[in-house]
């Protein structure tokens, strides 16, 4: 696991929350890196294991259904997942993610350039 000094966040009730509050879970950012792009109103997120041994763990835990739950309310369409074991990567297509996409979208991230980092906020089981 990479030791990174993320500051604790202050919740609305003043209590602090952070990874230590979530027993047995870790930020996906610690297991994977990612890049995203767009095709029309669909954002793609390519998720890449930081270590070869993490890939099977990602396949098992970062399912299309779970990613759809993670983005619930933020995307209007389904989530598809494709496996690239040769690159130790998963590719997700998030349909209806970009308010119409391209030039139509009013969002800051109209082309889904940083959607990848939003996926990396997911809390996942610690690999053994």
């Amino acid at each position, binding site marked *: 696991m990479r030791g990174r000094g993320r500051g604790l966040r202050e919740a609305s009730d003043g209590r602090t929350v952070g990874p230590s509050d979530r027993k047995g879970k870790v930020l996906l950012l610690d297991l994977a890196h990612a890049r995203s792009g767009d095709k029309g109103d669909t954002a793609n997120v390519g998720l890449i294991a*930081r270590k070869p041994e993490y890939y099977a763990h990602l396949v098992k835990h970062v399912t299309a259904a779970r990613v759809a739950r993670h983005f619930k309310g933020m995307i209007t369409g389904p989530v598809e997942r494709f496996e690239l074991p*040769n690159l130790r990567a998963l590719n997700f297509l998030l349909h209806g993610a970009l308010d119409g996409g391209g030039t139509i979208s009013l969002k*800051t991230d109209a082309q889904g350039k940083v959607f990848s980092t939003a996926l990396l906020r997911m809390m996942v089981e610690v690999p053994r």
Partner: protein
Amino acid sequence: MTQTVRIAAGQGFWGDWLEAPVRQVTGGPVDYLMMDYLAEVTMSIMQKQKSRDPLLGYAKDFVPLMERILPTLAQRGIKVTTNAGGVNPRACAEAVAALARRLGLAGKLTIGVVSGDDLLGRLDDLLARGHGLKNLDTGRPLGDVRDRVQSANAYLGATPVVEALGRGADIVITGRVTDTGLTLGPMMHAFGWRRDAWDLLAAGTVAGHTIECGAQCTGGNCLVDWERVPDLANVGYPIVEARPDGSFDVTKHPGTGGRVTVAGVTEQLVYEMGDPRAYITPDCVADFTTIQLTQVGKDRVRFAGIKGRSATDKLKVSIAYGYGYKAVGTLVYAWPDAYAKARRADQVLRRRLADLGLEFEAIVTEFVGVDATHGRLASAAGVPVDLPEVQLRVGVRARELAPVERFTREIAPLILNGPPSVTGFAGGRPKPEEIVAYWPALIDKREVQPCVDVVAV
């Protein structure tokens, strides 16, 4: 047969670093300089420019760039493949030819022009003959928006680029040729690859995909270990070293910044990826699940094992049409209670828009610094109460200009008649912007005949 061909990427999009192509041709040996200028909506901008002036309609930056590097290209025998021609590759070529004569290169340069991609003048004929040009995403027929179409271009592949090189072109200027075709073309030409050698064409296509976004595969916009990517100020753009068997290395010139690693290259491979088993181009269908990457040296990644399948009988068509109008207004609210003030301002603004009876297709509010990029995922655990500032960013979209225009006059009043501690209005009133939207479609390949002209300067 040529053993290695070095193809350098010089531009990842129209607006990329102006120094990159200069450094690519002077920083070490290369055989080709590949420059991609076209994004989906670029063609409609160029079509507008051409309608005002028949000598325009191409990436204008390309000509002054050529002025800087043409003597080096001629001296070193470096060839260029570029889609800078936009909707007027002939005018672009003529501008470069005039420049070459001015630089004393008359008789020393041959320019190839690839056209035939522009379908704008043929749309009604195609529709009348039963080509629906249905929207690939929505399934709607083009008839829905026919009267608002501003440009329509088929994506051509590597084949016409190969033909131009084969007829002696030093500089190949194209219209809407795929980004990948600009890299694959030189390989097919240099190695004599057949048009049905699917694995080889897939390899060249993967090479093209890897370098088409410039430095995005050499350390730029790279998340993995980003803090330690060296010397981005001096970042080296990618170079493909291709071999006849379809294997190739991606590297960069010695002494440049950035980094070429398996992890960084992998980020670029998955960028804008759909189904990785079927990366469809006019030339082939590449299977990205067959790519084997190896770090074979410092800043050098080897690609091998790439498989492909036969091309489809369709070409993709990129159509741009007038959709409506939009505007985005922003204001910055300062501590204390920056987020609360910004939220209140949004409520006031929306109430006023409703009271004016303005109708919008969409109103999108973002609080930059709180939720603009990660939405509720960022704010779910609580928003810090002591944020130094929050930017309120409100965008509206409508089919008509009038409500958008009226919206742009509702931002500034909030400075004096809304919540306090507001600033950041130096840019003035937001400007309404026409939305030119993208309509992807397919067309039978036999309907599109690429045209190649080769002229000696």
